[in-house]
């Protein structure tokens, strides 16, 4: 089993001045699960895109099964037996499973023969790898875990021997993730090679045979998983020692600052996304909302912060009502002491094409201190941005740099600096560390705890269960728009996982 499935030699790729991959060498043994880990922007995705033919390497060789080949496009990759499961699924939502699997491999203009063949083949694959799915189910009606299975089947249908999975567990419940891992082990037993891209160290430890670490475009180390540790990998990723546990003292909850009562929110299609949700948050505590993405957390945050109109319910901010069902105005809520770090910093929290300093005032741009007469006081705005850059160690420290040119972690710090430095009473934070590197995570977590210790009421939403457990003083679990349970941070992952999957929750809600 020491034959190599993939060998990369001296892969090098630049996008203009950005050197995304530097002289990468990688050996992946056949029939193993090989993890690739690294911070955001370390070059993992670029490397995989080269392997899958989205980009061409500037230099270097790709050797698959001992043969040096050129991968000019994904078709060439498929021909070489490489399949990829993308982070964001590439499925046609209103097609059935079967139609999606056939897509691009129809074989003839008339579909009938192909459909029969595909159905038979699909059945065989399902049996062989225990990947049961209903071939006639429409994709959009399937849970994400199953959609992912369809992606895997799609790759297998195209006779992939090497499967690349890019951050596959981001959208899964812990139980679904476990199931995925079982599938991956099965694939490995069948002789397939799996390349797992992730930033979650625990997953690497749980499932891989070997792991390669990338940092700033370079492959810094390859380890046999059983001979390494989470601490060593974290250090390799960041290049220095990292504190993985968040240190925090006891919470000292005081008055209720944010009170949500019977809040119901519907989305544009009239589907109820938040269903009769009630909770209170007191000054000096962090309330975390756990849940698989898409269970109403986003809509909850948007309704409280005045971005999305609620159907019914009341929200009290420091005792005064917010008109969540009418014309709640985000600008007004800011003045009343509500700060909001939105889940999607790329489209909501920041304007990526703006200079850093312009983003440092987004939402607060009507503050008189940024104005001089009729005009914006550009000097004051830049000075203000520089102060925040210093306080939050935002790099590079250049308020005139376009925001898109900052790394994910630094972009998030720009948002946090803006919202936290206003000294709000209530801070609501969505996905504080999504796409943020390990080094910055530590910093961000510390800041959030600091806010709590200064007596702010903090509402935290994250799909990272570890993060919720590490930061929260109380945990609410959302499933299908409802709060299905409240737990202390000592609750086990299994217990929370069941709630997140809606198993325990139904019982509890019924009581």
């Amino acid at each position, binding site marked *: 089993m020491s034959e190599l499935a993939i060998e990369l030699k001296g892969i*090098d790729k630049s996008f203009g001045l950005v050197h995304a991959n530097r002289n990468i060498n990688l050996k992946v043994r056949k029939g193993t699960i090989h993890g690739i880990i690294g911070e955001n922007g370390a070059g993992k995705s670029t490397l995989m895109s080269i392997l899958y033919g989205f*980009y061409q390497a500037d230099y270097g060789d790709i050797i698959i099964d001992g043969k040096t080949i050129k991968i000019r496009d994904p078709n060439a990759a498929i021909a070489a037996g490489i399949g990829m499961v993308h982070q964001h699924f590439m499925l046609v939502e209103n097609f059935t499973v079967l139609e999606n699997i056939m897509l691009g491999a129809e074989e003839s203009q008339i579909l009938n023969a192909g459909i029969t063949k595909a159905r038979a083949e699909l059945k065989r694959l399902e049996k062989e790898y225990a990947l049961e799915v209903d071939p006639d189910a429409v994709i959009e009606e399937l849970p994400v875990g199953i959609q992912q299975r369809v992606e895997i089947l799609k790759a297998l249908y195209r006779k992939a021997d090497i499967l690349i999975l890019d951050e596959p567990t981001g959208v899964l419940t812990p139980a679904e993730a476990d199931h995925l891992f079982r599938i991956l082990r099965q694939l490995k037993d069948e002789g397939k090679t799996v390349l797992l891209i992730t930033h979650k160290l625990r997953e690497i430890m749980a499932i891989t045979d070997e792991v390669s670490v990338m940092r700033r475009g370079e492959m810094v180390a390859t380890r046999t998983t059983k001979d390494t540790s989470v601490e060593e990998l974290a250090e390799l990723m960041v290049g220095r020692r990292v504190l993985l546990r968040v240190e925090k003292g006891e919470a000292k909850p005081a008055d209720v600052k944010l009170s949500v009562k019977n809040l119901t929110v519907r989305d544009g299609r009239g589907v109820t996304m938040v269903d009769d949700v009630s909770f209170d948050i007191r000054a000096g505590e962090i309330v975390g909302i756990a849940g698989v993405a898409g269970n109403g957390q986003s809509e909850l945050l948007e309704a409280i912060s*005045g*971005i999305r109109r609620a159907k019914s319910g009341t929200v009290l901010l420091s005792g005064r009502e917010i008109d969540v069902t009418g014309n709640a105005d985000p600008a*007004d809520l800011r003045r009343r002491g509500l700060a909001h770090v939105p889940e999607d910093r790329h489209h909501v929290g920041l*304007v990526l094409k*703006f200079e850093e300093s312009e983003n440092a005032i987004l939402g607060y*741009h009507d503050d008189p201190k940024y*104005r001089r007469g009729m005009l914006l006081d550009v000097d004051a705005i830049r000075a203000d941005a520089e102060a925040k850059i210093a306080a939050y160690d935002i790099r590079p420290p250049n308020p005139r740099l376009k925001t898109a040119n900052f790394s994910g972690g630094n972009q998030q710090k720009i948002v946090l600096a803006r919202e936290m430095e206003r000294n709000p009473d209530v801070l609501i934070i969505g996905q504080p560390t999504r796409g943020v590197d390990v080094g910055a995570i530590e910093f961000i977590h510390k800041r959030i705890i600091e806010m709590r210790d200064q007596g702010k009421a903090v509402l935290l939403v994250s799909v990272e269960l570890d993060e919720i457990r590490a930061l929260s003083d109380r945990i609410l679990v959302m499933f299908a728009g409802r709060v299905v349970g409240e737990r202390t941070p000592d609750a086990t992952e299994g217990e929370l996982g069941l709630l997140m999957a809606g198993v325990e929750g139904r019982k509890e809600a019924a009581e």
Partner: protein
Amino acid sequence: MSVPYAKLPGWAEYGLIPLVNLAVAFLISGLVVLIVGESPLEAAYHMVNGAFGRGEYIGFTLYYTTTFIFTGLAVAVAFHCGLFNIGGEGQAYIGGIGVVLACLAFDRTLPWYLVFPIAIVGAAFFGALWAMIPGWLQAKRGSHIVITTIMFNFIAASLMNYLLNRVFKPMGSMSLETRTFDTGGQLPKLDWLMSIFGLSVGSAPFNISFVLALLAAFGVWVLIWRTRLGYEMRTMGHSPAAARYAGIKEAKIIVIAMMISGGLAGMMALNPIMGEQFRMQLDFVQGAGFVGIAVALMGRSHPAGIIPAALLFGMLYQGGAEISFEMPSISRDMIVIIQGLVILFAGALEHMFRPAITRVILGLSPKTRDAAVTKGA
């Protein structure tokens, strides 16, 4: 998946790439001239000579430039707010009403320098009004601004047809135009400006509204980059979701941006009406509203880019007229082809040569060469 563009130095981004695009457009235009059986070099000579050869020609070029600065700025302002205002043509046309009303009312009693400000306000008011309606429909009803502004161009044309026929045309006149204004409705030419350079403006209608256009360009820069309103417009333009998050009133900003855009388009009417014809004629806008789109695209919606882009199109208009005059086998339509090619390469195919240029420039820059050396070591 798209390959991200690397950042180029400013001179390449704003100088070299537009120039290469232009050069290619002219090269292909030359081929077309060749196919017609004429000499491209001769055509090029007439183009440049016709646009800049004499003081009078320069005067004409700058007269067109003035018009295009206004319509280009109009498109740019809306564009910063994420709105594609195709209605500059109609807004400029309707803006003419404001100019005409001011001139007809005061040209016999007030001097031009008092009528001019009134006409400016009138032109901007009517242009803004005409743009406000599509803006409001977009903001409140979600009617797409591109569709509504196009429709409003036609409505404007019909409306003006009616007004010129039934309201503005003097009794007994056969042609669709207002009466000719008295001195109060006639803008002075900028012959003094030309004479500084030892040139004579001749019969060219190069007038004071050129100065207004430059002031408007500066005003737009201040608005977009130095005011809260401009900040909110740009936020909207880049990311409506971020604007909502920031508490920016979407509907209000859309309507205001469209009104400013329409006002600028309306001010274009000053140039032909008060500066050249001294009356309003049917269809006096002559497509300038659409040229404004090309000007704004080429000028990257920045006043500093719009002014040279407007100058380029002014040159194409003036020089092109000269080509068709000097070379009879090249019809006026040929000029439209050349303009079309410029728009095609500078606008639609803007990024066509970028990868190659990026490779050349970054390949030559010492920084990347060093990086390559260290990598080899």
